[in-house]
Structures are given as C-alpha cells and as structure tokens.
C-alpha cells in the first residue's frame, strides 16, 4: 500500500522523496511563507509593523545567541553583536538557498544527491522550529527511545476545537517527514 511506502528513500547513489500532491502543496506553501518571513524580517532593529514584529518573534529560534554570558559580560556582548551583525545574513542566505533546493526538488520530482537531501532536512527542521515556536512546544518528553517531540497537552491527541489544530497537524507532518529523512541519510 502506498501509505506504507517511506516518504524518503535511499538508493544506491542518491535519494528520492515520495509525497502526495497535498503533502507537497502544504510543504511548498509553508516554504513560501518562510521565504516571505525571512526576507522581510532580516534586521535586528525592532520593526514598527506589528506583523513584522510578530514574525520576528516566530523566527527567533532560527537565530539564537552565539555567546553564553553575553547578557552580563560587555566584551561578550560586543562579540555577540558582531556575530549577529555578520552571521545573521549568512544564516538567512543559507536557509534561502536550502529552500530553493527543496522547491526545485518538489516541483520537478527527481532523485536528490546527499547535499540536496541535507538541504531538504534543514528546511524541514527550520519549519518545525517556527511552528514549534508558534505552538509553544515546551515538553520534549522523557522517553529517549521515542525520539519524537511531544506536545504540551497531547494526552488525548488532537483537539478538534483547538484553533491551532492546523498548525499542529502541519507540525506532526513535518516531524514524521524529518524522521524519515534522517533515517534515509543515516543509511
């Protein structure tokens, strides 16, 4: 049955991705939004537009601080500022390049090289970080065997009345896809 077919498969020299049309469409839509957010929220100044300020918060996990203790040590604070000034744009460009690779692979299905599948993996993970931030995922569970982050209130599964149910479904889909991607890359 097609549903049991792994979405990411390793071949002798390359990889292939097998998604339904709906899954590809969702992924492309999420990636488009990520590009929009990355290209409109690139500076470190607090934006005046409330929507940009909100998106800046949503992207925060993609641009973490680089120096421990920068909040108390002026020298480290200076290094931190320099890192963010120089490397943030590098990170943005790196993510945009990865997304471009994924878009190309999804719109013209073909086999992917390992670097292309790694770009795919990085993009899927970046989307999970943004969705996880919006969903305020705070609990990664205690079972190391599980390996899949759990939702804060997932005892009874998805709540159909939850206004975030769409985000939750997208997050779970990305988790599933990322697991298969890592598995394929790990051989």
């Amino acid at each position, binding site marked *: 049955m097609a549903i049991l077919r792994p979405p990411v498969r390793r071949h002798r020299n390359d990889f292939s991705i097998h998604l339904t049309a709906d899954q590809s469409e969702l992924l492309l839509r999420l990636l488009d939004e*990520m590009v929009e957010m990355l290209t409109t929220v690139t500076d470190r100044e607090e934006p005046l537009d409330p929507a940009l300020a*909100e998106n800046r918060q949503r992207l925060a996990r993609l641009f973490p601080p680089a120096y421990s*203790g920068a909040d108390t040590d002026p020298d480290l604070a200076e290094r931190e500022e320099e890192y963010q000034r120089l490397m943030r744009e590098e990170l943005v460009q790196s993510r945009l390049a990865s997304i471009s690779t994924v878009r190309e692979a999804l719109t013209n299905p073909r086999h992917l090289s390992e670097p292309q599948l790694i770009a795919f993996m990085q993009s899927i993970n970046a989307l999970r*970080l943004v969705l996880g931030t919006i969903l305020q995922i*705070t609990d990664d569970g205690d079972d190391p065997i599980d390996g899949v982050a759990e939702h804060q209130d997932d005892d009874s599964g998805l709540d159909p009345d939850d206004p975030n149910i769409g985000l939750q479904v997208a997050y779970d889909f990305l988790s599933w896809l990322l697991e298969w991607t890592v598995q394929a890359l790990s*051989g």
Partner: protein
Amino acid sequence: MMRPIMGATSGTSTPTEVRPDYLPGDLGLDPDASVEEDRPWVVLVWNDPINLMSYVTYVLQKLFGHSLEKATELMLQVHREGRAAVAEGNREQAEMYVFRLHEHGLWATCQHDR
C-alpha cells in the same frame, strides 16, 4: 488569497555511517593545540523541546565526525543534563562551529573555558 499558515500579516495579528563535513582536526579542534594564554573556547549544545533526538544525533555525527555511539551519548547528555560540550578550539573555530550548528537549527553557544 490564502491565509498564511504560520506567518503573521498586517492587519491579521493571529497569534550506516554518516560522512562528516570535516574530519576531526581539520579545524584544529585538538585540545593539545591550545596555547596556555589562549584558553580554549567550548562549543555547547543546549536542550530544546523542538529538535528531534534522531536529528540532533545525525547533525552531531555530520558536523563533528562522531560515531553513532558518541553522538547518541552527547545527544542524551543534552537531553538529560540540559547541555553538552561538543567541541572546543580557539574563538574563531568555536564561532564557526556555532554558526554551522545554527545553520542546522540547533541551539548552540560558545564560551571561554574556565
């Protein structure tokens, strides 16, 4: 026009073996290489509730050339203790590794070894 799934818009404020990128030592990560007056910088990976354990393990293998066992050990240390030191070197090397970890979405920082 479709409503964004995760982006806010103006006016709608709704809330086998992994081949490493570098071989060990390529970037002078050998602690013996540190000189006395230049204490090494340590690269730390911090626990976060979003990144998958399998993903973190793979990234540590890929970036640092760790075996699956070593990468799993470090990942579990991050998970259980909140953080783990994954590399050390001079400041430029440590910053470069932090960047590569950020590129992969891991929450990483560097600090001067004490």
